[in-house]
């Protein structure tokens, strides 16, 4: 009974918190809702007319949606880079933001699942994947593995976050006997979701660009760059717009970790590029399409070099201690990392993997307005979820919103 009363208070308080905010907050929400509506309309048209209104064709049968899916799996996995020092080594400065990392992971996985859903031709048959009504081709299909690990990872993060927040709300310390094993499990799971997603592509001998054993490590390296990049920007915003405190040392530490991850990312990319260009087999075509173009087909080349430039810039800004302590260069580094990894994974992985196609044909793929709108809608939905969760979670962790004063949280925590 006590639990129910507490829960009712939590819901009422949450609604109250979510509905309070300044004009910047409401503007942000309005933008997100507009993007969601636009995406919803575009998706409705895609459902009625078929995927033909995207630019995907038999030649390039996966595109922007799967690229975003892959990138967001990396974002979701990156929470672990913070979890390890926070819980395993009890390094306090980072622990405060781990909870936000996990909220980010939860939002990112929801976005991942939505990107898969909008990519499939028969969303009405999604349940075919879900036993016992459906059939999951486990363990043969790596996509079946991906469905499993993504959902497990989602549940773990959801449970940990909910537990910690609930305990904090009811004025208790979290139960280490629940949290620590879950957190420990989430570490291999985070590596797992990204490895499995890499294997999804890696296992296809038909696509030499993906069929390289460097793919999974390279996925992890880039995930450990792009995930924290988002998180660093988020915590800075939180610090600006709420009473949330975070030590500079924590931010600097994360930036330093990102520098190592980015070095690995660049190194692995370089190793792959060397192997392709120096050995110069027929498999070099795909790497060539990305970096140099094939004949007149050079659409992706500017993106490829932009990504390289952004990643190198981010590495320099994070590895130089003075630069990562400077807020301007730190944020430039974060944006550069995010953009660089996004181009790399969203376009640089999927499109050259399928161009030229299995029989040598070059079809120049780039997303249509429908795809951009649907993707923007999904990102907006993810950000909306993340915003609303933060709106509730931040006051809880700050002790402003708890069971005792439910419905009247002290001080409106406002953040964009």
């Amino acid at each position, binding site marked *: 009974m006590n639990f129910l009363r507490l829960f009712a208070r939590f819901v009422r308080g949450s609604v109250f918190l979510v509905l309070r905010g300044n004009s910047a907050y409401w503007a942000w929400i309005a933008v997100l809702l507009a993007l969601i509506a636009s995406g919803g309309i575009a998706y409705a048209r895609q459902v009625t007319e078929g995927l033909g209104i*995207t*630019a995907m*064709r038999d030649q390039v049968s996966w595109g922007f949606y799967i690229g975003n899916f892959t990138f967001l799996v990396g974002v979701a996995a990156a929470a672990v880079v913070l979890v390890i020092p926070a819980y395993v080594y009890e390094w306090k400065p980072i622990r405060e933001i781990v909870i936000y990392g996990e909220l980010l992971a939860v939002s990112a996985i929801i976005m991942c699942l939505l990107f898969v859903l909008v990519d499939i031709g028969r969303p009405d048959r999604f349940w075919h994947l879900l036993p016992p009504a459906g059939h999951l081709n486990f363990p043969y299909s790596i996509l079946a593995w991906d469905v499993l690990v993504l959902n497990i990872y989602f549940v773990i993060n959801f449970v940990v976050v909910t537990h910690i927040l609930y305990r904090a709300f009811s004025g208790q310390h979290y139960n280490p006997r629940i949290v620590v094993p879950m957190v420990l499990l989430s570490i291999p799971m985070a590596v797992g979701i990204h490895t499995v997603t890499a294997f999804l592509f890696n296992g296809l001998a038909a696509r030499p660009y993906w069929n390289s054993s460097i793919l999974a490590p390279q996925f992890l390296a880039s995930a450990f760059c792009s995930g924290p990049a988002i998180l660093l920007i988020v915590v800075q915003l939180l610090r600006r717009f709420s009473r949330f405190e975070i030590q500079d040392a924590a931010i600097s530490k994360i930036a330093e970790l990102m520098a190592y991850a980015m070095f690995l990312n660049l190194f692995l990319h370089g190793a792959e590029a060397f192997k392709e260009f120096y050995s110069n087999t027929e498999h070099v075509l795909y790497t060539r399409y990305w970096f140099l173009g094939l004949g007149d087909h050079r659409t992706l080349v500017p993106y490829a070099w932009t990504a390289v430039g952004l990643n190198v810039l981010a590495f320099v800004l994070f590895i130089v201690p003075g630069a990562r302590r400077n807020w301007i260069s730190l944020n430039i580094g974060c944006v550069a990392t995010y953009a660089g990894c996004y181009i790399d994974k969203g376009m640089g992985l999927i499109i050259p993997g399928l161009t030229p196609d299995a029989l040598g044909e070059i*079809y120049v793929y780039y997303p*249509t307005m429908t795809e951009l709108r649907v993707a923007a809608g999904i990102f907006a939905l993810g950000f909306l979820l993340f915003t609303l969760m933060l709106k509730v979670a931040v006051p809880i962790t700050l002790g402003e919103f708890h069971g005792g004063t439910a419905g009247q949280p002290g001080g409106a925590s406002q953040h964009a």
Partner: protein
Amino acid sequence: MKPAILLGAAMLACAAAVAAVEQRPGPQPSAPQTSSPQTPASQASAPAAEERLEVPPPPFTDGIFPCSACHKDLKVNRARRELVEMHTEIELKHDAEHRWCLDCHDANDRDHLHLASGELVSFDESYRLCGQCHGEKLRDWRAGVHGRRTGDWNGHKRYLLCANCHNPHQPRFKAIEPKPAPQRPARPGK
């Protein structure tokens, strides 16, 4: 030597083969499932060398056969020469340097061909004549590997005579117009 019944059967086979040539989705007009599917060894795929294969009649020009209808009153002229009165449409492009009409057509029995040995063969057995030079093709053809097959893969296969596809006087295939190229993949609205 060639009873009318055999000719009739050959005509029927021809009709069936012509039907098979047409692109049609409907069922085969006559496809008797004689061989049991459970016994994969099929009787028609590797006939013994001496076995007479069921073939459509040779593709004669209308009214030209029997040749003896005209030739029985003509004196045999074995001299190698350019034909000016009849058969002027025939341009020999089949090793013409070494070959001439009477190397294949029999001078004494105009309704038959003859092999190098002098043995007479009927026009619906002409593959034996072709096979004298093109032995590998004849073997492949008997095995079902050279030439078009229609009908049943495990039963009644329909053969064609060499001359049904290759003009014996100009055996090389003529170029034909291809069917339309596939549409290129296009972005929506293009």
